[in-house]
């Protein structure tokens, strides 16, 4: 159980002015980015990283936590008002929300989005607070074998869920791992793929790669697909935030509970992250509903379940990131990278050696999600104004931030060059249905995977059966092998897709 002394010390840390200010500013920024179609929560987080260089670890992570929570939640705004999902997670229920808008119930749709997202986020944070220290105690007995299999599980699952074609997810993952090998080798210190460049000897920083792949490629995609030419939001309706929200809670308590439980469970799986939760929750809500025929006609039941699972999954995605040091999605991969930069190594040892830090990070989730209620009020009031900010102003601002952020990594133009290359590669990858999240996850987790793999190989004298000798390692290894086998069998049995002209459903994976 959580130590009360640790809890109170962590609370004091979180209630410092600089942490609270970071949370409020992060939320305001997340609202702005999340509400603009085409700009994702991951992109919001990526652009924040250069700012965190100059912050203490806790405010830096609090900034990321609150901006992500708000950006994911604010992703509902363009979905509700324009029928354009702000984030991949909100795409699951955009049609339902827009149907409410057409009936003159945009205020209700936005209110329930914010209210149930915040509630789901709070419950997810509670799961994280309770399970984190317990799992950390178990993970203290883990050796390099268990960490190797956990990293494999996370990477493999992320690659599989982020693309309908497993081979494309695999390519993204391998590219990320390959880029992580550039620089000096983690064990022998030998240079790899440096081509005599001093800059490459230090390795490829994940920050410009991430800024390029998520921000620059998104902007190029916007130009190519004319995604910046948006319809105007509906006018005339009076927005009364949270009006009648408690009657919805009373009418659909099971939707709230099921959504948060599902979101917490799915988000906690290494490599899965929270995006998938909203899709499954919406489908499950329809399956268990007494009135499934109302779905798609502006019915709040599915919205409640999906939005609450959304933010619950967002909180619990931090379980593998904080407890095992294995991030669950692109956002937690970025956060883990920031923690490493600050000299804080996430993992079970952190809960023993510095328990206040992970507890304070978890408490910052509570503060960020609690703030969603009042900030949501203003966000709903300001929703139409945010959407009316011209793209001709926002896009150039974002690009300038990309440039400066990449330069600030090492005060060198090498970072900018990396960002440009990563942006172009990311653009081509996305256009060809190669997911981006596994690249970032591979880049961040690559050194962890390689270190544990080499260590395990040395311990087992190169005998791969040694990877299955410890019980937990054997179970994790068997799970990884089963997933690989299942994927291979399914791929071999797969019938060829319909030829050109047939549409495929492409689901985003970058929150």
């Amino acid at each position: 159980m959580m130590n009360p002394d640790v809890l109170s010390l962590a609370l004091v840390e979180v209630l410092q002015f600089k942490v609270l200010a970071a949370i409020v500013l992060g939320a305001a920024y997340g609202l702005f980015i999340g509400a603009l179609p085409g700009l994702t929560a991951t992109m919001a987080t990526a652009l924040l990283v250069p700012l965190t260089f100059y912050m203490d670890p806790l405010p830096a992570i609090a900034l990321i936590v609150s901006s992500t929570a708000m950006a994911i939640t604010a992703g509902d705004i363009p979905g509700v008002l324009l029928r354009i999902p702000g984030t991949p997670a909100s795409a699951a229920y955009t049609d339902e929300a827009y149907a409410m808008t057409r009936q003159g119930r945009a205020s209700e749709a936005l209110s329930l989005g914010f209210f149930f997202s915040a509630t789901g986020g709070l419950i997810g944070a509670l799961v994280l607070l309770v399970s984190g220290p317990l799992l950390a105690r178990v993970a203290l007995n883990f050796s390099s074998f268990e960490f190797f299999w956990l990293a494999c599980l996370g990477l493999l699952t992320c690659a599989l869920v982020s693309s309908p074609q497993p081979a494309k997810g695999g390519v993204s993952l391998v590219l990320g791992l390959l880029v992580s090998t550039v620089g000096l080798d983690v064990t022998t210190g030998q240079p790899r793929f440096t081509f005599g460049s001093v800059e490459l000897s230090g390795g490829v920083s994940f920050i410009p790669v991430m800024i390029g792949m998520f921000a620059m490629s998104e902007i190029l995609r916007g130009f190519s697909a004319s995604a910046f030419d948006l319809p105007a939001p509906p006018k005339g309706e009076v927005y009364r935030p949270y009006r009648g929200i408690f009657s919805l809670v009373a009418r659909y308590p099971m939707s709230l509970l099921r959504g948060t439980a599902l979101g917490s469970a799915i988000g906690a799986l290494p490599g899965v992250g929270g995006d998938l939760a909203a899709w499954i929750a919406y489908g499950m809500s329809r399956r268990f509903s007494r009135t499934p025929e109302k779905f798609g006609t502006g019915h709040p039941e599915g919205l409640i379940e999906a939005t609450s699972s959304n933010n619950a999954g967002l909180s619990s995605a931090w379980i593998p990131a904080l407890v095992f040091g294995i991030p669950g999605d692109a956002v937690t991969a970025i956060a883990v990278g920031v923690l490493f930069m600050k000299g804080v190594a996430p993992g079970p040892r952190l809960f023993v050696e510095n328990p206040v830090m992970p507890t304070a990070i978890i408490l910052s989730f509570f503060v960020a999600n609690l703030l969603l209620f009042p900030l949501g009020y203003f966000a709903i009031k300001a929703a139409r104004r945010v959407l009316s900010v011209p793209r001709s102003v926002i896009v150039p601002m974002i690009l300038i931030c990309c440039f400066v952020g990449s330069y600030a990594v090492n005060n060198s133009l090498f970072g900018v060059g990396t960002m440009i290359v990563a942006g172009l590669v990311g653009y081509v990858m996305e256009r060809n249905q190669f997911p981006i999240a596994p690249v970032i996850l591979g880049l961040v987790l690559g050194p962890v995977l390689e270190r544990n793999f080499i260590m395990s190989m040395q311990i087992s004298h190169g005998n791969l059966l040694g990877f299955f000798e410890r019980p937990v390692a054997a179970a994790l290894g068997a799970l990884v092998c089963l997933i690989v086998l299942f994927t291979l069998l399914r791929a071999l049995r797969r019938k060829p897709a319909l030829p050109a002209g047939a549409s495929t459903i492409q689901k985003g994976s970058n929150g």
Partner: protein
Amino acid sequence: MKLGDRIVGPGLILLGAGVILAAMRIPDVPGVRFGADLMPVICGGGLVLFGAALTRSGLREGGPWASLDEWRVSPRNLASALWVLGGLCAGLFLFEPLGFPLFGIIFMSGLMLLMGARPVTVALVAPLFVLTLYLTFTRVMFVDLPAGVLEGAL
């Protein structure tokens, strides 16, 4: 730019083979059994494997080899995209001599105009945003952004 799996797959196989060859040229360290080449060889193997899988599915499914259809957009969007790419690449050479404030204002103003912003908005927003960003980074976060031709004036 859309590329068919029949092009991407063999490309990945070639890349993977190149990675394996390059990794095998990393010299061994005496006494180290699992050295710096192991992980790159595994990654190269992965690229070859997935490349083969994509080649197989590409050959089965057919479809176009390559397509630039998504760039059949308005001249304004095309010009904006070219300005972004050209501007960022030019920034690699002009950023330090011109300095961030001047480069930033030129780059941002050009893009805003190409995207259809009114000149008055451009004249107000671009300098204000770039200078605020410059002062925040240099004075608050102590990042050494080059002032270039405006050295001494800011």
